[in-house]
């Protein structure tokens, strides 16, 4: 199992899910992770190690979806089953199979929800975009652009955030996906425009940080924060009203599906099948909120709590 990093709880839970499943099936599992977001080099080295070590298959959440492809090809040539988890490779058929959530869709859901919650006020909303990193790794771009699409904002180049010209966007800032960065980025954007009333965040820790910044100036009640991930602390924050809505994803499911697929491949050479109508196996995404709006499907916090990870 090769994850992007192992400092993000999302991937930690993914690893725990994989370990549990592997134990159940009696499979040997070694896990590797990049050092920082976007760390392609360490992942390449990890794939090479797997090949050298005679592994049967690789579960990979690619840091750089296209840069990793040559290494993946090498692994497949060496007879390993390569399954992309969470993030599809580019092109998607570079991996034997992809178990993924659609990060763009996840962003779109919260975007739509936010727009619908605001109703008429959406036309003159003031939006803060709290992204991941200046290097703009692919999740970062997909979630960000998905949100804007859902909110109804022209994307400019969909492969890049920060090039939008819509005046409703106050600005983008980076958070490293944690509370620390979330707070500082929020403060910076508030200094630029204290009237911000919608906050997109890359994940729930960043959202929690942004909330602290708003609380410090007493505006936590009148700002809408949306996020992606659906980890248990995040869902609890939705319950507490810290976050308005979050798109929940299912790393445990991805990991255990992946392990099962590799077990099957090792046993009798069967490759897994894609979801109907898609080029990958969609493990799904669901909007968690206690304030459902018309036209956007969502599940309640109660349900979200049952499905959450971490």
């Amino acid at each position: 199992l090769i994850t992007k990093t192992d400092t993000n709880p999302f991937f930690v839970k993914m690893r725990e899910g994989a370990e549990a499943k592997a134990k159940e099936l009696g499979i040997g599992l070694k896990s590797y992770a990049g050092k920082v977001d976007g760390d392609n080099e360490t992942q390449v080295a990890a794939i090479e190690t797997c090949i050298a070590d005679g592994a049967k298959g690789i579960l990979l959440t690619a840091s750089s979806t296209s840069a990793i492809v040559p290494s993946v090809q090498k692994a497949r040539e060496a007879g390993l089953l390569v399954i992309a988890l969470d993030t599809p490779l580019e092109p998607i058929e570079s991996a034997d199979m992809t178990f993924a959530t659609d990060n763009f869709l996840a962003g779109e859901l919260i975007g739509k929800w936010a727009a619908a919650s605001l109703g008429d006020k959406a036309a003159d909303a003031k939006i803060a975009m709290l992204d991941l990193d200046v290097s703009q790794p692919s999740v970062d771009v997909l979630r960000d652009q998905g949100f804007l699409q859902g909110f109804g904002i022209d994307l400019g180049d969909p492969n890049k955030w920060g090039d939008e010209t819509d005046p409703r966007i106050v600005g983008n800032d980076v958070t490293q996906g944690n509370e620390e960065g979330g707070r500082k980025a929020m403060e910076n954007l508030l200094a630029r425009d204290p009237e911000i009333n919608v906050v997109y965040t890359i994940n729930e820790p960043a959202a929690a940080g942004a909330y602290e910044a708003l609380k410090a100036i007493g505006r936590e009640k009148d700002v809408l924060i949306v996020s992606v991930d659906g980890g248990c602390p995040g869902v609890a924050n939705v319950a507490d009203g810290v976050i308005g809505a979050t798109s929940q994803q299912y790393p445990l499911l991805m990991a255990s599906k992946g392990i099962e697929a590799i077990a099957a491949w090792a046993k009798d050479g069967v490759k897994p099948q894609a979801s109907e109508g898609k080029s990958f196996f969609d493990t799904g995404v669901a909007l968690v909120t206690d304030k459902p709006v018309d036209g956007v499907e969502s599940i309640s916090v109660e349900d979200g709590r049952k499905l959450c990870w971490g």
Partner: protein
Amino acid sequence: MSNAENFEDVVKSRRDEKVAEFDLIEKNVFHRLHSLLHRTPALVPLIVLVVACVVFGLINANFWRISTLSLIFQQIGIVGILGIAQSLVVLTAGIDLSVGAMAVLTSVIMGQFTFRYGLPAEVAIAIGLAAGTMMGAINGVLVARMRIPPFIVTLGTWQVFLATNYIYSANETIRSQDIEANAPALQFWGTAFNFAGARVTLAVVLLIVLVAIMAYVLRHTAWGRHVYAVGDDPEAAELAGVPRKRVLIQAYALAGFFCGIAGWVMIGRFGSVSPSASTGILGNIQAITAVVIGGISLLGGRGTIVGMFLGALIVGVFEMGLRMAGADAQWTYLLIGVLIIAAVAIDQWIRKVSS
């Protein structure tokens, strides 16, 4: 050639002559400023700072609002305290790459001891501070007794502490709401009060007090002088009777203690306890940046804590100013790089002209 024997007799009778005084005539205001700067080099970053504030204030009038300035102080709170820790180590001609990791790990220890083991928050805080001190002492012992270069020691312990932090915490965040309800002492330094119309947190007060205390300790106590001597020329210091190893270990341990305090302050600032705080990875570079912009020499023995504090402020002002001026994240990143160099270049230039 009888004078060969007694030429020294001339000087055998003591005459205490007056030494010529060569007082400079300080020609004009400009000249006076120069000689002032030369005598108090810590003023140079101060001037850079003032100029930066004026410029940013002209670009965006909001910059000069008292709330913006208070925000800058809050943002540099943690870097400032890590900078104190880093200054101590850098003054001994060392470098501490592990400061950020120690801070994050102590904050996790404080959180986990309260929530996992159910200890009172005050006890957990004490344990966290002790843990920080111990981690620092480990660095110190490796540097002083095993004679491993500080860069290597702290490069290694940085990775060790950071990995321990992730493994021990199982990457779990303790939520702000839970802490607020069950262990408000952890968030103590986040308490805000009103000051001159702006909300200021206790963390800001703490930072200023700590800077003042350490400035006193380094300038006015024997231990402080020993820290400088060890950094200046370790061999000479040892020959002159400074217990080099002991001073080194104490300096690193004290740095660890300050990292512990930084860990506590982090909880106050972010509300939650998060093992993946970016301070763990970036804290060291940020602290070193503050230290070097503040005029402390990485070769040891030269510079002041107050300089470091100004260095941290300069970075804080630049970041905030650029964001407010509307630069986007990538451009801000680029411009801060340029400004760091420019700030030090101006500093060097002023020193050269004035000398």
